[in-house]
């Protein structure tokens, strides 16, 4: 009985991800498209889509191309076709990895993102469970307050936060970012997880309560295993947000070795050198790749996180 209920719940928890998967995976129904002729489809569908895709992807092509172009081809646009590269070189990338502090910055970014995300997910699981299932006094109001916290942008907080961080003695330390980033991530993850927890049937928890389980045991042994797709979505989206964050990192971190990739690229590579572009683009490329690879593996979870947070 309990087991069938558990599988049922698992199915329900999966539906949210599957709904998102539907966005990504093709639904094979042809719909009414057989009514259209091919030339018409070419003009109304493929051509505009092709143009939009080219515009969306061109900066990445350009980024990748520049990072493997030898310097003389970069600035000589008459003798070499700028859209292609002859004799590609790894010079910029090796320079980046072995002659600058780039690996250190990459490590900082990853470290801060992983710690902040883990902290936020733990806090969000607890608060989402409390709001959805404990039904305490004022629970709904707390949910609304957390939603409003989601709408407070970093741009209006960074100045007072800088003085708070200074007062706590955390200035120029990665710990400052690890503690501040959860304010961006918790509201979002809490709302996302609330949606997932709502799909888990009460009956399961009631069975466990009758069997003498405490709330803590219920959370650890029943709710969390059933909400794994939601947790992955929240984790990946939060990780990406951390990686992308700029203004706090720019304000709180001063010394070069402590910087994160986005801040370091903007501040450390920008000198008067006309040949800076190769290493700049290599830096941008290497800084984006980890996220793109992560995204490629978890497209469905990513989409479900994005659409889920908006729909809730």
């Amino acid at each position, binding site marked *: 009985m309990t087991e069938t209920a558990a599988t049922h719940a698992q199915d329900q928890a999966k539906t949210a991800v599957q709904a998102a998967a539907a966005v990504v995976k093709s639904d094979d129904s042809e719909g009414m498209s057989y009514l259209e002729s091919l030339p018409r489809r070419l003009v109304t569908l493929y051509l505009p889509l092709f143009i939009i895709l080219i515009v969306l992807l061109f900066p990445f092509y350009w980024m990748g191309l520049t990072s493997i172009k030898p310097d003389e081809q970069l600035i000589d646009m008459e003798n070499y076709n700028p859209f292609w590269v002859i004799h590609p070189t790894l010079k910029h990338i090796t320079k980046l990895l072995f002659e600058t502090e780039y690996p250190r910055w990459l490590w900082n970014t990853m470290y801060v993102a992983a710690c902040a995300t883990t902290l936020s997910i733990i806090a969000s699981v*607890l608060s989402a469970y409390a709001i959805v299932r404990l039904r305490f006094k004022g629970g709904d109001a707390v949910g609304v307050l957390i939603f409003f916290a989601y709408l407070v942008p970093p*741009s209006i*907080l960074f100045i007072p936060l800088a003085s708070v961080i200074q007062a706590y003695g955390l200035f120029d330390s990665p710990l400052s970012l690890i503690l501040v980033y959860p304010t961006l991530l918790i509201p979002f993850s809490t709302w996302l997880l609330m949606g997932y927890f709502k799909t888990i049937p009460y009956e399961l928890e009631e069975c466990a309560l009758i069997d003498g389980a405490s709330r803590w045991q219920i959370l650890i042994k029943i709710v969390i295993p059933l909400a794994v797709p939601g947790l992955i979505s929240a984790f990946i989206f939060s990780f990406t947000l951390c990686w992308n964050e700029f203004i706090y990192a720019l304000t709180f971190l001063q010394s070069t070795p402590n910087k994160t990739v986005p801040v370091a690229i903007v501040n450390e590579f920008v000198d008067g050198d006309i040949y800076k572009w190769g290493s700049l683009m290599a830096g941008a490329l290497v800084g984006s790749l980890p996220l793109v690879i992560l995204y490629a593996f978890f497209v469905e979870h990513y989409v479900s996180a994005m659409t889920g947070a908006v729909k809730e």
Partner: protein
Amino acid sequence: MTTMQTSMPAQAVYKDTRSLWERLRTNRNWLALWFMLPTAAFLILFLAYPLGLGVWMSFTDERIGRTGIFIGLENYEWLWSDSIFWLSVFNTLLYTIIASAIKFAVGLYLALLLNRHMPFKAIIRAIVLVPFIVPTVLSAIAFWWIYDAQFSIVSWSLIKLGLIDHNINFLGDPNMARASVIFANIWRGVPFVAITLLAGLQTVSPSLYEAATLDGATDWQRFRYITYPLLTPIIAVVMTFSVLFTFTDFQLVWALTRGGPVNATHLMATLSYQRGILSGRLGEGAAIATAMIPFLLAAIAISWFGMQRRKWQQGSDND
């Protein structure tokens, strides 16, 4: 739900016989307090408190390394007569309105395209979101290179096509710089709008379109009287978020122009960073940041009414 509530009075009967620890451990409200504690600690210490502190700092003359004293509205009076501040307000509004409107139009168009039947649908939809995944600053750097005054690939292509005869000064001329920054923002924002609207589009039943087609509706009529009304609630939410994030944007502009040329692309956020952190006048920077709050409240109010309307459309049970 009902079962849980009927079990409560039974608990209440022997509640008094348990020790204080037992009660703290099992009472629903106390338990909720423990569960909410980490979230509350983060949000109060690093969100609510700084928010209040920011408003307070805007009434002081605090500088980096020196606590300020209360000076009333002096910062705001100073800003009121500061033409650069008003220029930044104008830029922010221009940036937000133009970028959001185009993001909405292109995003909706792209969502409608992606919603149609075609080969390699899955891969195309996944690719569309890539600009949203890549950190904004890193793609802004790519745009910076594309907009380079001497080696811009756009200028080069247009010259080769014979459309212009000299390089475009993308980030050097005030109006070109505004247009360039807005374009980069649109490029980054369209995937978000398109994919979230696509999720909304997929909840629209195809049978509605089939019925309308049988009744002789044109493409435009199907969009206007089926798609658009059913999509309104999600459009309201998506656009509120889009407006909010565009209005408070910082990193794109900072990476591309740092507010230049001649303050032509300074947004309120970048001006606040320049005055508050770089020049060290924290009080004045906080005043600029605080001046953004009324605009944000307006955006949130719109979001709120958008959701109310959704509730009304779907009936009161909105789970």
